[in-house]
């Protein structure tokens, strides 16, 4: 039993840097929670925890082995890396808690790098609505191009490049989409309407690709036959399952995000009215009485 647990927890291809980054994020977050001691941190903490742990599990446990040798598990891995995990992390708005828990040098470093003009310009560029949508869908199509997918599964370097690019792009995209601040707060906080358009724009291409894979009569990705599968399963069933995972849950995420954005929109709307009303009564009292 313990052997079995150890086998499942052992990374199939250990990536020390990746493990360090996850450990640092988890540590800073836990410390931040302990320092702040706020009840309202609990719900976001659950979202952050599930997001972070799920991303770690699909990359650095035995799940990664199955993801390398079964197409449908590979698709599920990317669903977590590119959609679900980053979605939950972005939804938890972890910046304040992370900053509260991070050592001072790390906060200074992140702020230092984050405010460098080229970094800010790059960030603004990738968070531009059109670029962000293109990157989000483009990466899925890029890595699922059969010839590119073939090499990515055979070359250790490309495999990690693929998974990391999906994780990073997922974080960027959902960070941009689920930004809870009022539109216009920063240069990358776009209006709710525009963000909903982007969310719906990325849906049809994902549905089309997923349906194409799920309904293809022949093998689209022969690399799984070339490398062997983790257990004997019909290649076409493997492919159909993978196609369905690309097709349905991925597109559903856009719908869920839309609902969340609409809620943010209502909150901003509600918050906008009181200050105007207050001002009318507040201004006269500020004037000298005598």
């Amino acid at each position, binding site marked *: 039993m313990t052997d079995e647990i150890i086998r499942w927890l052992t990374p199939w291809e250990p990536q020390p840097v990746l493990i360090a980054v996850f450990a640092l994020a988890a540590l800073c977050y836990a410390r931040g929670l302990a320092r702040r001691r706020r009840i309202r941190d609990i719900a976001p903490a659950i979202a952050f925890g599930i997001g972070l742990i799920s991303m770690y599990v699909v990359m650095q446990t035995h799940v990664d082995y199955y993801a390398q040798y079964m197409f449908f598990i590979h698709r599920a891995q990317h669903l977590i890396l590119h959609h679900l995990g980053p979605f939950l992390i972005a939804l938890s708005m972890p910046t304040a808690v992370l900053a509260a828990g991070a050592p001072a040098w790390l906060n200074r470093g992140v702020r230092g790098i984050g405010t460098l003009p080229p970094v800010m310009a790059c960030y603004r560029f990738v968070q531009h609505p059109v670029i962000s949508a293109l990157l989000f869908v483009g990466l899925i199509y890029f890595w699922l191009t059969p010839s590119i997918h073939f090499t990515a599964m055979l070359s250790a370097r490309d495999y990690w490049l693929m998974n990391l690019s999906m994780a990073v792009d997922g974080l960027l995209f959902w960070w941009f989409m689920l930004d809870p601040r009022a539109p216009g707060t920063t240069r990358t906080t776009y209006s709710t309407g525009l963000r909903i358009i982007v969310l719906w724009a990325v849906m049809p291409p994902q549905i089309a690709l997923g349906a194409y894979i799920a309904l293809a009569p022949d093998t689209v990705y*022969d690399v799984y036959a070339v490398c062997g599968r983790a257990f004997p399963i019909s290649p076409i069933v493997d492919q159909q399952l993978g196609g369905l995972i690309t097709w349905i849950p991925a597109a559903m995420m856009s719908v869920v995000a839309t609902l969340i954005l609409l809620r943010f929109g209502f909150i901003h709307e509600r918050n906008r009215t009181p200050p105007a009303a207050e001002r009318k009564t507040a201004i006269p009292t500020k004037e000298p009485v005598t």
Partner: protein
Amino acid sequence: MTLYKIHSALWLALVLGLGTALSACSGGADYAAHDITGVMPDLEFNLTNEKGEAVTADDYDGRLKLLFFGYTNCPDICPATMARIRAALGGLDADTRDNIDVLFLSVDPERDTPERLQRFTSSFGEGVTGLTGTQEQLKALSKRYRVTYGYGEPNENGFYLVSHSSAIFVFGPDDRARLLINQQQGVDEITADLKTLLGQLD
């Protein structure tokens, strides 16, 4: 705005560059097979041959090697692939053929004893060697080439299926990984690829 434009151009270049760099690795123009030169590591293993002797990759040094992962109870792919290899090698002249080793690696050591392996390989002509090893040895080698295998549930007669790689890996005399031949490739294409590769090595 100019800064913005410069950055747009930079990013576009990066994305396109990544695209071309990756697609460049994914298929040499000269081969029907996938060119895996530089993508996969050199051949290295500790296994047992069909005579029951311990062997390493060094024992096959200086010769071109075709490596296939399979099992002797395999109902379709393995015998068919071995027959294709035999036919493809038939298209080469005898001298060249003598310098090529075909390594049939069984990933089912439970059933594939050295005797059984020998019986299987002898039906596919000269130059075919059966290899197998412990689970640890097999896992080390398959992980090295990013392939895997797995066992199905046994039926009432104890027969079980084994999932395995369907590709033929070609290694140069210097043990460098060179080509990956998949199931779709015809006999003539394999012969042509081997000729091209041998021509490049000379």
